[in-house]
Structures are given as C-alpha cells and as structure tokens.
C-alpha cells in the first residue's frame, strides 16, 4: 500500500475513535439536562411527560375530565396532584398517594378513582366520613370538577 493510503487510514482510524467518543458524549449530554426547572404555574402545561401507551386512553377523554386534584383547605392547602389513569388513595397511612396528617382522617380514608370516563370518590370505611358537598359518601359516587370533597379538616377539589 502506498504511504499516502497508510497515513490516511491511520488518521481515519483516529477520527473514527473520536466519532465514537463524541457520539457517546452527545448521548450523555441529553442525560445531564434530564430535568427541566420550570417556574411555578407553567408546570401543568409544560412538564407533563408524554403519556405512555397504556395511559393514553385514560387521559384522552372529554374536555370535562379533571386533570389534577387540589387541596383547597386544611394543613396541606395549595397542594396539587396530577391525576393519571390510576386511583388516588387518601389517608394517614404513609403508603397513601396523598398523605394527610389530620387527626380526623383514618389511615385509609378514601379513594378517588377513574372509571367509565369519570372520576369517582369512595369512602373506605373511615371513622369520620367523607363528604361530597354536604352529603356523606358511602358507596362510590361520581365527582364533578370543582365539587368539594371534605375529609376531616381537608377539602379537596378536582380541577381541570
């Protein structure tokens, strides 16, 4: 082989190694910026990750569907939870989705869950009861957006 080809191959090989290194760093770079810091308020529109395949049917319902749960009164007032396709368990138990440290709240107090395109609230046999508006909830009842759910001293609303 001629000297020129040998030199070109030698330099080409080095270029190939660096191509690998730079490609690797490009992949790595995406990961370094893996989270975005967003100003408060833009969260709900900006940060929602692309729903995965099995959740899409759940979240693609009509425009009346609530997308988040907001605590409007009580010690956790102001807290919001993003609603996904699964049930939200409310109670004092540390395993609950929404943990309320409220003396009037039971360990497993209530559950809010989606079914047939709407959200339902259900009391899980709590001592002090769950109220939707002013009526006490026993069996699962559908919840409209904006109607207050009272658990102990806490009031929760579903919001769009």
């Amino acid at each position, binding site marked *: *082989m001629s000297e020129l080809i040998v030199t070109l*191959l030698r330099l080409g090989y080095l270029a190939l*190694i660096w191509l690998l290194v730079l490609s690797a760093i490009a992949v790595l770079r995406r990961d370094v910026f893996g989270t975005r810091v967003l100003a408060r308020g833009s969260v709900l529109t900006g940060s929602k990750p692309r729903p995965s395949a099995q959740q899409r049917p759940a979240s693609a319902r009509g425009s009346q569907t609530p997308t988040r749960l907001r605590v409007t009164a009580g010690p956790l007032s102001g807290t919001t939870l993003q609603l996904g396709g*699964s049930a939200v368990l409310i109670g004092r138990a540390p395993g609950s989705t929404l943990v309320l440290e409220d003396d009037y709240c039971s360990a497993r107090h209530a559950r809010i869950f989606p079914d047939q395109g709407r959200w339902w609230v259900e009391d899980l046999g709590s001592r002090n009861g769950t109220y939707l508006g002013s009526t006490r909830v026993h069996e699962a009842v559908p919840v409209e957006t904006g109607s207050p759910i009272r658990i102990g001293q806490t009031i929760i609303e579903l919001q769009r």
Partner: protein
Amino acid sequence: MATVAPSRIRTGRAAEVWLLLLAVALGVGGYALVGLNTGDALPEDFGRYALILAGVAVVLHLVVRWRARYADPLLVPLVLALNGIGLAIIHRIDIGMTARGIPFAAGPRQLMWTALGAVLAAAVIIALRDHRTLRRYTFTAMVAGLVLLVLPMTPGLGVNRNGAQLWIEVGPLSFQPAEIAKILLAIFFAGYLVTNRDVLTLAGPKILGLQLPRVRDLGPLLLAWAVAIGVLVVERDLGTSLLFFGLFVAMLYVATERASWIIIGLLMFAAGALLAVNLFPHVADRFDIWLNALDSDIYNREFGGSGQLVRGLFGLALGGLMGAGWGEGFPHLTTHANSDFIVSALGEELGLTGLIAILLIYLVLAQRGLRMAIGVRDGFGKLLASGLAFTLAFQCFVVVGGVTRLIPLTGLTMPFMAAGGSSLVANWIIIGLLVRISDSSRRPAAEGGGEVVGAETARIALSTQNEGTGKGPDGAARPRRRGGTSAAVYDTADDVPRVPANDAHDQDDDDDQHTEVVERP
C-alpha cells in the same frame, strides 16, 4: 418557586444501534489495519473475528431490548469498542512477537473469552430480573468473595507468576479468582453498608475541623484493611490489595458521605504499604523502579529492573501525538505488552490522540455508572452501581498511573483490553449488572420504577402515574385493575415495595427524579 420536571424519557435504543455500529467498525477496522500494515493482507481469521464481534453486538442489543428496555445506551457499545480495540492490539503483539521468533497466540484465546464474557453478560441480564435480589445474598457473597480471594494461597492450587500469587491452576486452565471476588465483595459491601451506614455515619470527635467517626465504629474498616494487607503480604500483589481496600473505602464514603473515612483509609493504607516496602523486597523493587526508572543500574538489573517500564515509556514517546499507526510501532519489545503494558502499546500505535479517546471512553463508562447510581431508587442499587463503576475507574487509574510512572507499577489489568480471560469475563459480568441497574434507574415511574413515599406531610412525594408502584421482586410492573373494588386499594397500598427505614433518606434525595409535580404554597 420552581418545580423540577423530568424531560421526556428516551429508551436510547436507537442511539445504541448507532454506537454499536461505530464500536464494531473500530474493532474490525483496527484488526484489518493490523493485517494490512504488517502483511499487506487481511488477517487470516478476519472473517471469524468480524463475525464474532458483530454477533456479540447483535445478541447483546437484542437481549437489552428484550429484558432491559430502558438500560443505558452507552454501556454495551463503549465496552464493545474497548474490547475490539484490545483484541486488535493483542493480535498486533502476537504478530510482533512471532516475528521476533517467539510464537505467541493470545489473540484467538482472547476472542473466545470475549464471546464467553458477552454470553455471561447476556445471561446476567436475562436471569437477573431485579438487582435487588442480590441483596439477599449479602453474606453469601462475602464468604464466597473471601474464599476466592484466598484461594490462590492454597498450596497445590495456587500458582506464582512474576512474583505474584494470584492465579489458580486446574489442569490446563488458569484463572485469577480475585477478579470474580471483586464483584462478590462489591455486592457484599453494598448490602452491608446499606443496612449499617446509619451507625457508621454517627459523629465522633472533631479534630482539625474534620468530623471523625466514633472509634468503636472503626471495626469494619480495620477488618477490610487487614484483609487488604493480608493479600498484599501473602499474594504479593499491591494492585489487588489496593483495589479491594479502595473499593471498600469508596463505598463507605458513598454510603456515609463522610470524607473522614477516605482520609483515615488512605492513611491506613499508606502505613501498611510503607511497612510492606520495608519488609518485602518484591514490593520494594516496585518502588525503586517507580522512583528511579531511568537509572542505568536499575534499568539493567536482571530481575526486577525497570526495563519494561522504560521501554513502555519509549513506546509512548514513539507514538507521539498521532501514533505510529496500527502495526507500525514496536510495542512487542516491551515485556507483557499485551496485558500489563497494553496502554503503552496503544499509545505507541494510536498516539496521544487515540489514547486520550480511549481514556475518555473509560471516563464516560465510569460516569454512566455513577449517574445510574444517582438515578436508581434503592440504596443497595446505588451503592452497588457506584462500587462497580469505581472499580472500573480505579483499575484504569492504577494501570495508566503505573505505566506512566505516576504511581508504582501494580499488577492490575486494564478492564476489557488487557489479555487475560478472568479479567475480561469478570468485567463483562460487571457490565451485565450495570445494564440491569441502569434499566431500573432510567425506567420511568409509570412503568414500575418509582415508589410512592409519603412519610412526611410537608412533602408529598407522588408519582402521578402511580399505576405501576407495585413492582414485584421480578422487576416487572404488574397490571393493575382500574376502578375495581376497595380490595384493590388495599392491594395498591400493600404492594408498594417496603423500603427499609434507613433507605428513606435516599428516597428523598432523588424525589425530583420521579416526582412530576410537587407544588407548595
């Protein structure tokens, strides 16, 4: 107030394909260039070589797609590239040695070990569905690791090579059990420290602004030190001893976040090493070579001279900036050019440009290991990933440092490159484990990677799609009934994997990883 939100999750499998192509091209290209530059023809087993390398790439990619969809896309390609370059340089040294009249055929053997290593890595990915299962074997791993560590000391089984008692020989097969012991002890340290780190974090006296641990908690460190020094004394190998002690101290630091452990550890090791230098001529020689490599009496000494080290340095000098080119240098003049001095052989043929690229690949690998340790949710996984990443990085440091005379030369191997089956296989197994951990580290919470933590009222840790909170021991998200009876609710709550209490703070550490929205007034 700002909120931290994760970006869209990418599995990275497409990037992996591209990187695998590059990696295979590097290995195959290097191999072809060695043949072309030394004999004006492709090496005779070129087809087999290319086939095995491409086969390893395809099989591992498919296995990762099948069993670890979210695994880090960099691990397998980078390792394959290193392994391929290593195979090419080993083949090149075979040719050089044969030309010198010493028949040498480490290449084909290394190729077989590569295939075996990749198969074992695939087996780890397939068989181990969740790295947390390994925690159950904490103490089994300790016993097995220590047995493997002392195995070469058994008379009749252990073999002494070049002054180090590191090998066992059974029939025609020889193996360095310390390589496997490395993995087992990393598992043990991770399991042990995750349960005991709270005690080891307790503060003791404060001296010179340094928060020291309590004296009575020094026990485990002393034990690790004693074992490391025992290895140094009996097996006469500074590298292995340094690696084990370093691994323990590094994991201790990761577990407790106390810099004092590192300082105490370094001081203890320095004292032990100093003692060894004074007691054992073999170790003393290494120090002599390191400090006065270019003295002519040390260079010309018949045994334990610095000839090897200095020839390696000459090789690096010949390589210069752009390297001599594959097959154009004289790396085979250095003793053990294909194992201990593979770095200087590569520096000679690929130059500083190539060598820095290779070191960057190692750097990225180590970074991926530490990154996945940050991302993974359980304390055991964090410690194991950081421990394994540490061993890779530390081995590189010790080897490159030794070859370039930054530290005394030791008997560690360059991971994935140096000729030697035990090290290659062990490191591929490490990659299998890292792929497994990175899969659970990068898996989005919706698919079972996240767990709901809710002990604190002030911070509601939630994952909006807590659909998959029930991640069973098999690591697969179980399908969950929607809107079922209340029995399903109890199920939801009880199935959240219970994390031991002392894991709680590290759950909190990375809440931002899987908490989409936590908004507080």
